């Protein structure tokens, strides 16, 4: 589903990514682990066609990110620690706006269904600026999957959430992830990554330093990999 | 007389401006070269150790 080929990103003195290559099969839940500034967010942005790599390319659901960015965008749902929601629009209006941008069929029905699922149907007419952070992220999840993407790119979606909101969003997320959807999550939360993903890709200073199934790697090993400065 | 004063001011300005600019580049360049030298020495030292 996702093929990343020799992606490098550098400018002037800043080398954000260096020769990153991996593949993700359909239905896999993969986590990109790394400390802040390791290049995770840059990689997600490249895959989401927000920024261009200096070298290399990637293919998502059969479309090259450099040649058919619009086709790629149709296939992916992106969630980040920013909600991308407008505070001055209601929950429904936000979904309506994004739904129309994706040209979703039977939009009203889809919005009803999504609001039901993220448990916000009672507040659908209220302005998003009155929502708590947790509610906003739930709505943001609905926004990200409004066009029924098969691939989800999640960039620290749980940042700034309290325990309850975290759990709620996590449950929702797992409801949405059908057995055939592909997920690439970016986080620095090791425990969450180990618990939820099939595979871990560890990035450090813009390089992939480990790429293994979750079952074959221990939490301590990951911590060592991330902390080890000399190597 | 005042005619020549203007000529003088104009030329003085031209050469001062270009000279100052050159000086500025030269300063930057020599600063960086010195830093690189220091950095290299540091680098060798830590490798040696």
């Amino acid at each position, binding site marked *: 589903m996702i093929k990343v080929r020799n992606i490098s990103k550098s*400018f*002037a003195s800043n080398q954000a990514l260096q020769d990153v290559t991996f593949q993700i099969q359909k239905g896999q839940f993969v986590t990109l682990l790394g400390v802040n500034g390791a290049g995770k967010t840059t990689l997600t942005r490249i895959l989401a066609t927000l920024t261009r790599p200096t070298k290399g390319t990637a293919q998502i659901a059969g479309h090259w990110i450099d040649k058919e960015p619009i086709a790629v965008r149709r296939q992916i749902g992106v969630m980040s620690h920013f909600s991308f929601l407008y505070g001055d629009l209601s929950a429904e209006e936000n979904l309506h706006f994004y739904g129309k941008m994706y040209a979703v069929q039977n939009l009203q029905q889809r919005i009803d269904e999504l609001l039901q699922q993220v448990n916000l149907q009672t507040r659908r007419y209220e302005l998003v600026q009155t929502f708590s952070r947790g509610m906003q992220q739930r709505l943001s999840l609905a926004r990200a999957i409004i066009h029924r993407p098969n691939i989800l790119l999640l960039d620290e979606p749980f940042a700034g959430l309290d325990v309850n909101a975290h759990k709620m969003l996590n449950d929702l997320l797992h409801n949405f992830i059908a057995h055939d959807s592909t997920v690439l999550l970016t986080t620095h939360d090791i425990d969450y990554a180990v618990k939820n993903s099939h595979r871990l890709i560890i990035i450090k200073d813009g390089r992939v330093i480990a790429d293994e199934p979750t079952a074959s790697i221990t939490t301590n090993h990951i911590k060592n990999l991330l902390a080890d400065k000399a190597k | 007389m005042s005619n020549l004063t203007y*000529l003088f001011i*104009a030329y003085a300005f031209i050469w001062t401006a270009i000279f100052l600019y*050159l000086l500025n580049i030269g300063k930057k*360049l020599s600063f960086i070269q010195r830093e690189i030298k220091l950095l290299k020495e540091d680098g060798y030292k830590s490798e040696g150790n």
Partner: protein
Amino acid sequence: MDKKYLIPILLSYVAILAALYFAFIYAPTERTMGDVQRIFYFHVPSAWVSFLAFFVVCIASIAFLRTGKESWDILAASSAEIGVLFITIVLITGPMWAKPVWNTFWTWDARLTTSFILWLIYIAYLMLRSYVHDKERGARFAAVFGIIGFLDVPIVYMSIRWWRTLHPAPVMGGKEGSGLAPEMLMTLMICLGAFTILFATLLFLRYKTGMVATEFERLKIKIHS
């Protein structure tokens, strides 16, 4: 100092000496304006060099947007700096020439006004470069502005000329180049050549400095990590 820096510096040194000789000794004194007319031999080449510099900014900016190579960005930045230097010279020497001849420092004629607006545009360009958070995005912003700024040059010139022709403007002593004595024309050509060499040298030095600075940053990060 490095040999590759020394040769262009010596070359422009000789060229400028030659230009000075021609401007002050070889060229005859202008009959009506007197010696102050000799500003002309450095005023016009400065204007030429600044246009050339902004042209280089535009070309380097297009190349940067197409390739994403930082060296193009450094070239554009270098050229803009030098362009601002020379357009400033134009704006200072212009009034120095105008005051004794037309008895006014400033007229809103098309060339003078265009130079002034160009000065504003490229000062803005340099400010934009120093006001960005993200280096790469900033370089792209500067490239976009550099392209529009240069395309604006003929537009500004045309609009100002159109504006001024509809108003009474002081007569500007004929077209440049048309009424010039052959010796004066020769001197002007020599000075244009000398300033072009000077521009190339300055650009080369500034560009190299920029490249070395980036290289230095890269090295520093490599060693510290």
